[in-house]
């Protein structure tokens, strides 16, 4: 499979990477080891670690950081940015529609059962339009590249995409370790993210809020693998980091428990799932959550970001229809393409998938984190057959895609520098305005030939540069 190397083309170096060629050539092995150790010490010191669910082991494990940056030219980014913003607008328009009149379904452009029978569809918010008509305030769109001008969206994350702390901290660490690189290359800064996030959240304050809104981040707690990120964002925005037990509902509002007594909360950036928001509304067995929160939400006493129910737009089965959403709501042609996708729930698609299984990537509709997926070409016959049985048992639970030749970027490995596959997750902010900081999270599959970049599966991260014009 011909793969696109983002830096080297034959013997030449693509322009965005021009200066990195000298940089890496001038770095002796000893200096590199030294810098790598320094980077790791910095990461550990700031406490940015990642606990992998279900693996036991060290909860303070570091995500490997690769010092070789991933670079986009201004022109490449300009196109990506347009495509990402377009997609974020369409996804939000879709959400407002399916919790309202459902025009796209009436028009026959997407099957109703995919929406209304979807696990992520929250009947509890049907008919409610959140402030500024925004359901998903932080849209994380996973993008892969297969050629100079070929980008595909792998999936959308409309609920609470994580990883932005790696974007911010990777940059901090690179600037600290290689200040010369930043003098020689004109790299767009990403540290405006937290301020933009704060503005975005404040812009969707509920209608009953007068004056400057009080914003909080709601975390499941310090045992959560993304807790560091929650506390970093709270710190950078200067807002309180709360747990469910810190909040309560009284009258028409939501309050937090402070040492000075109750203080009203206007906007909740929640990093917990819908199911744990309000035990009265969703899960009576939940210890997490704030009883009565949904009533306050629906009566305009508090805003919840992302809005409950936003998940129905990033379902892997609904994903297939996003280009259709762009056309339907915006009257535009999609700038970013989807990866061709087969729905195992459809008989024709299923037949094709089972036939071509060893060549395909198969994912669970509701899976995430690289769990429960099959990468056909990388698996043994046995593994493929075992997966086949699972698909046959519950076809509706799976989608399949061709195995893409993901682009690669030079990466520091044991033997020196070698190409490794990458993807990209930019974080698009949607409030009164739609904003995108120039950068994102580049994940890299550190194992040779591997296509799975998830941090839970041994992936690492890189700093992502967007060059100024």
């Amino acid at each position, binding site marked *: 499979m011909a793969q696109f190397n983002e830096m080297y083309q034959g013997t030449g170096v693509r322009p965005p990477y021009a200066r990195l060629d000298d940089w890496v050539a001038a770095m002796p092995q000893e200096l590199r080891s030294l810098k790598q150790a320094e980077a790791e010490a910095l990461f550990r010191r700031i406490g940015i670690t990642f606990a992998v669910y279900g693996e036991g082991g060290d909860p303070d494990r570091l995500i490997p950081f690769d010092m070789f940056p991933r670079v986009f030219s201004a022109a490449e980014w300009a196109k990506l940015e347009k495509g990402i913003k377009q997609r974020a607008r369409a996804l939000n328009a879709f959400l407002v529609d399916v919790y309202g009149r459902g025009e796209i379904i009436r028009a026959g452009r997407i099957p109703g059962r995919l929406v209304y029978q979807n696990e992520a569809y929250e009947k509890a918010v049907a008919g409610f339009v959140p402030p500024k008509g925004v359901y998903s305030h932080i849209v994380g769109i996973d993008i892969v590249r297969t050629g100079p001008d070929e980008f595909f969206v792998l999936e959308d994350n409309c609920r609470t995409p994580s990883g932005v702390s790696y974007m911010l901290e990777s940059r901090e660490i690179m600037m600290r370790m290689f200040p010369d690189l930043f003098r020689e290359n004109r790299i767009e800064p990403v540290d405006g993210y937290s301020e933009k996030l704060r503005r975005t959240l404040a812009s969707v304050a509920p209608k009953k809020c007068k004056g400057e809104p009080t914003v909080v981040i709601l975390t499941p707690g310090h045992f959560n693998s993304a807790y560091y990120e929650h*506390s970093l964002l709270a710190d950078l925005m200067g807002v*309180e980091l709360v747990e469910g037990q*810190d909040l309560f509902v009284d009258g028409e509002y939501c309050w937090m428990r402070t*040492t000075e007594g109750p203080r009203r909360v206007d906007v909740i950036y929640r990093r917990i799932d819908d199911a744990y928001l309000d035990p009265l509304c969703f899960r009576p067995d939940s210890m997490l959550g704030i009883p009565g929160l949904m009533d306050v939400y629906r009566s305009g006493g508090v805003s919840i970001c992302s809005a409950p129910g936003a998940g129905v737009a990033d379902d892997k089965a609904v994903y297939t229809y996003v280009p259709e959403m762009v056309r339907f709501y915006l009257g535009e042609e999609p700038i970013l393409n989807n990866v061709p996708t087969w729905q195992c729930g459809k008989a024709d698609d299923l037949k094709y998938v089972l036939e071509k299984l060893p060549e395909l990537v198969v994912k669970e509709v509701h899976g995430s984190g690289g769990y429960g997926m099959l990468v056909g070409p990388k698996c043994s016959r046995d593994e493929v057959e075992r997966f086949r049985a699972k698909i046959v048992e519950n076809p509706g639970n799976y989608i399949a895609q061709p195995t893409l030749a993901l682009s690669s970027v030079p990466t520091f490995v044991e033997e020196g520098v070698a190409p490794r596959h990458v993807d990209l997750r930019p974080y698009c902010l949607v409030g009164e305005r739609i904003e995108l900081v120039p950068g994102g999270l580049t994940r890299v599959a550190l194992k040779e030939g591997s296509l799975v970049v998830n941090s839970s599966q041994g992936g690492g991260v890189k700093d992502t540069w967007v060059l100024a014009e």
Partner: protein
Amino acid sequence: MLSRTADNLYWIARYMERADTVARLLEVGSRISLIPSAHGYRSEWDSLLQATGMAESFAKKYGDPVQRNIESFLFFDHDNPSSVASCFTAARENGRIVRTALTSQVWDALNTAFQELKALERTPRSELELSRLTDWVMRHAAMVRGAIDATLLRNDGFNFLNIGYYLERGDNTARLMDVKYYVLLPRVDFVGSGLDNYQWSTLLRAMGAQRAFHWAYGGDVTAAKIADFLILNPQSPRSLATCAAGLVNHLARVAKAYGRETVAQEKARALLAEVEGATVEAIFDEGLHEYLTRFIADSADLALGIHDTYLSGEMR
């Protein structure tokens, strides 16, 4: 600030101070055990456990109070919530939860203590001298305390940390003094004997206060002087008077910042008035043990008041 955040800060301080005291207790115990025991004494190590209120849980797990077991129990045992290992782990965990309320220096100090603890736990016990362990604890406790004093914003979080420190320290000083009561059962003929004085000075040494004591009082070490020093003297950094005054001060700052008083301020002032109104004679008339027991109870009552008002989130 969030009540939960205040609660975490308060407990960071309490755990660090408690670890410090446990290390000092170990030092008292090992020094007292170096002098020949005589008829009429209980086992010194047992007394030490009695004073800390941990005798029962120790006996359940280890049986006889042998020095090595006591060291395990007080230093390494994660089943003992007051062991150094438990305290350092809990302090760091509380710190991790409220990272945003701490400076990186404070976090560093907490985290370093924890990381070194993990290394100590992997070291064979035969290579670990007790004195090295106790020094190590006191050094890290001092580093955290220093980082707090040197780098933290003087806001309500700073006050809640200090409230935790003073509350725990007052309670611990009272308990450390009470060790003496258990070691030397009230047998009048020992009072004023050479042995008696040796034990008192061991106590002073454990509190790192031996020199300070001699500067302040001079002459022989007597029970009366020590009681004055550790209970009434506002110059002594660990005296009950100093701790009560610290509590009044930091609670007053909280009340001022929030624009209202609560039952906590009232109780703290009562505690201070009680200490300031006492004399050595009155204390010995009442009985030192009885006096200390009363102080420990009053201080626990104040802790409850602080919890109910500021830390529980129930304030309206």
